[in-house]
């Protein structure tokens, strides 16, 4: 477990300058992208602030800071969550996944690859949030008994993520392609294991 010390002067000054408002510090212990972290942060900080400004995980973006745009979407215990309206102290002991944890060993996630190849990210600012919502959709899809990739389900899964550049068309295509790929792969795997068993 890595202990991150509060070395940022900005952060220390904050409490000093505002004695009027009780600014308690808390230690937040949580799992971020599979790694345990313990961070000291002001009690009123959001999870987004903690990720971006304390842990340097800048992949999660701030588009509105009030729960309207979805650019800050992360997975909290596997569920898409708006980190800008989630207090850091409220996620003690829980698992957070950000876009930085999406790929494996330097390899982009199939979603990222499809997004890049199909032009589903233009300015890219909404993309980390979109990817996390899409990743949750893929998880749900692959764990369902009769997985079918449906456009309507994809649109619903991304309903909380505003994109201003793409008109969503290429985003739908990319998620569709990644979903199809993943289903085929798991089907192939299942087939091999059935073969092995027989």
């Amino acid at each position, binding site marked *: 477990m890595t202990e991150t010390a509060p070395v940022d*002067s*900005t*952060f220390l*000054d*904050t409490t*000093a*300058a*505002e004695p009027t408002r009780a600014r308690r510090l808390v230690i937040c212990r949580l799992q971020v992208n599979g790694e345990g972290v313990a961070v000291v942060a002001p009690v009123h900080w959001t999870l987004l602030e903690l990720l*971006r*400004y304390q842990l340097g*995980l*800048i*992949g*999660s*973006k*701030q*588009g*509105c*800071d*009030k729960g*309207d*745009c979805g*650019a800050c979407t992360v997975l909290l215990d596997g569920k898409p969550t708006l980190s800008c309206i989630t207090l850091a102290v409220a996620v003690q002991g829980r698992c957070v996944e*950000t*876009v*930085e944890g999406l*790929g494996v060993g330097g390899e*982009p996630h199939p979603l*990222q690859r499809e*997004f*890049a*190849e*199909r*032009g589903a*990210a*233009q*300015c*890219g*600012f*909404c*993309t*980390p949030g979109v*990817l996390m919502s899409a990743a949750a959709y893929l998880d749900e899809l692959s764990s369902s008994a009769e997985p079918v990739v449906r456009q309507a389900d*994809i*649109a*619903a899964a*991304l*309903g*909380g*993520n*505003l*994109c*201003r*550049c*793409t*008109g*969503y*068309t*290429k*985003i739908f295509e990319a998620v569709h392609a990644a979903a199809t790929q993943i289903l085929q792969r798991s089907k192939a795997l299942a087939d091999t294991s059935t073969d092995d068993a027989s």
Partner: protein
Amino acid sequence: MSRPISSDKTARDLHRLDTDGAEGSGPIVGGRHGKHDALPLMSGIDRYTDDITLPRMLHCKLVRSPHAHAKIIAIDTSGAEALEGVHAVVIGSEMPIPYGVIPWTPDEHALALHKVRFVGDPVAAVAAVSEEVAIEACRRIVVRYEVLEALVTPQAALARADLKIHEDNRHGNITKHVHLEFGDVDAALAAAALVVEGDYQFHGSTHAPIEPHCAIASVDGKGLLTVWSATQVPHYLQRELAKVLELPMRQIRVIQPAVGGAFGGKSEPFALEFCVAKLAFKTGRPVKCLYTREEVFLAHRGRHPFDMHYRTAFAADGKILAIDAKSLLDGGAYSSFGLVTTYYSGQLLGAPYRFPTYRFDSTRVYTNKPACGPKRGHGSVQPRFALEVQLDKASRTLGLDPIELRRRNFIGENSVTINGFHIGSNGFLQCLEAVVQASGWAEKWGKLPRGHGIGVAGSCYISGTNYCIYPTELPQSAVQMCLDRSGRVRVFAGTSEIGQGSTTMLAAIAAQELGVELDDVRVLAADSDLCPVDLGAYSSRITLMAGNACLTAARTLGDKIRDILAQLWGIPAADIRLEHRRAFSLTNPQVWMPIQEAFIITESKLGLLGSTGSYTSPQSAVHGDYRGGTIGASPAYSFTAHIAQVQVDEDTGEVTIEHIWCAHDCGHAINPVLVEGQIEGSVYMGAAEAVMEHHDTLPSGLRTDGRRRDSGPGVDGLLMASSLLDYRMPTSLDVPQLTALIVQAPDPRGPYGAKEAGEGPLHSAIPAIANAVFDAVGVRIDNLPISPEKVLRGLRNQAGRKPC
């Protein structure tokens, strides 16, 4: 002559790109590739401005006016300065030099000097150790105002010429008036078989990029100021910073990191950039300012609301004889690009149709609202709506298919518009044909069951303008290029990548010409210390201008390599091809070497391999010979046709846009994936404006909660939607089905024939939807947005019942 993209042959014939290369294969220019810079952006690796944190960085917040119109009597900053953690406060009098993106209309100050002109006008700025402390400090700054009557409609602003929003403005509250007349309009109107006359209202909308504005400034010990900003015009920012801060330009470095969308909303300097720069000088520490979402809505510079009166005259066969247009533009508190907008409101209407007489009269006025400026399709989306609806009305009266009416009025390629603009290639008829085919128009128009309808519209846009916004004979774009011994190409360009794909476009051209793969090209862009000037990402200029500059630089290097290899191999240089990491003889494929080796051999003979390319637009015989005749003239024009299919719920008045087909003539698609993306994004944005979005202040007498309140000075001018929840834009569940069709009519002025793709495809989406609503239920909505309320009112009128 135009060719649809579906035949892959197009690209190959044009550039002879067939290859048996060992590496990639297929064309790079014209091939379907992803966006060059996408992966690192979407992985949290490359940084947008707010992702940058500098050691000892302070945070800046602004104090903004609560009044729409008021004099500033006094500002007391002592309470803020006394607060622990506050390092500096700055007010308007410390930056008294006015600026404006258009050099002829400098009417803005970094912070308001004597007066505030809209609710949200910035008055003071604070640098403190954290955002929280800065916010608290802002609360402690006391500003005394003398409140004036707020003029929130253009009619009120015109009527109150005595109450000037800008005291030194010459004509009351009028910021610009343009009146131009070509041919005898009145005679044509008098002689016409049909005159369609109507009033049209186009409402305001805003860009709402998902990334808010953000800027950081840092000063080194020697006085060099570096500003990182989420801007789409780093060069203009550098100029205006120099002016306001009274520094030589050489002492300012502007870096534009990745930008999270702009659409015209970041195409001029804003208060935050001046404030962080000033505060960095005052404190000696880096300073960052990140606008809140509400501040982004206040910064605005979005689509101007237009009140339009149009008369269009037709012959019995549907030929347009005259257009007589009168427009009143609601400019908001400052000029911004307004001088240009006022011209564009008439100047950009001259194609794709031919008409022999034309008059437009446009007046832009100041109002006490956030300033309007250039939003995607600057100044020409509003008049396009009026004209294309007029055409639809005419086709109904004349009993002509609206497609046929548009065909009959086609201006043609290599033509000159009534206002003197020279059109080169023109694929408009192919665009019409493409959407007619794809949508099944013939089976649908006038034939769908009631409640379902289909509509068409067409448009034209510019690929950059021939003149810079400040007078100069310098190139509008330039590129430096360097090859190195690793087999890599480096491209240095001042271009602004804002998501539209300029970096990918430059990489494709360099890779195509120098025989490397896309990933072998590093594009270093928008850093004023390292890159030559490009004017910025506006008026759809980069592909044509920077693309041409890049092509020149790359061909210069390619020629050098071919010359050296020709000597080495004893074959003519013309026989040598550079493709997919190989140099080879076209006639004898046995003769080849890896491209890296070719670079090394050439460098060993000639020294470091560098080149430059510049682009200066054609300056003569392409525009009108009259005052203002250069404004809006472009090297090349793009063309678009839209067909929209809608469903109207007659019980609720709700319009559901089911499908929009858009065909766009972009000359040559350097990367079809990105062109489609631009088309889809534009159509989405246009559709959103048509039925959902509305940026305006609350009507007088209403509070934000919709209840009535006592009106009086100082309470008007509140934004009615200043969050992404209240400002309704389409989510993935609202967006219609979009079909993007690429049409290619290569223009000799574009690189490989390329023209613009980023703005044109927005325009005619809106009138196509309005025309489809009419086809569905026979109701004309000439007053945007098309809201359920207006549709219901129209339906009730139609039924002869009293309107609600």
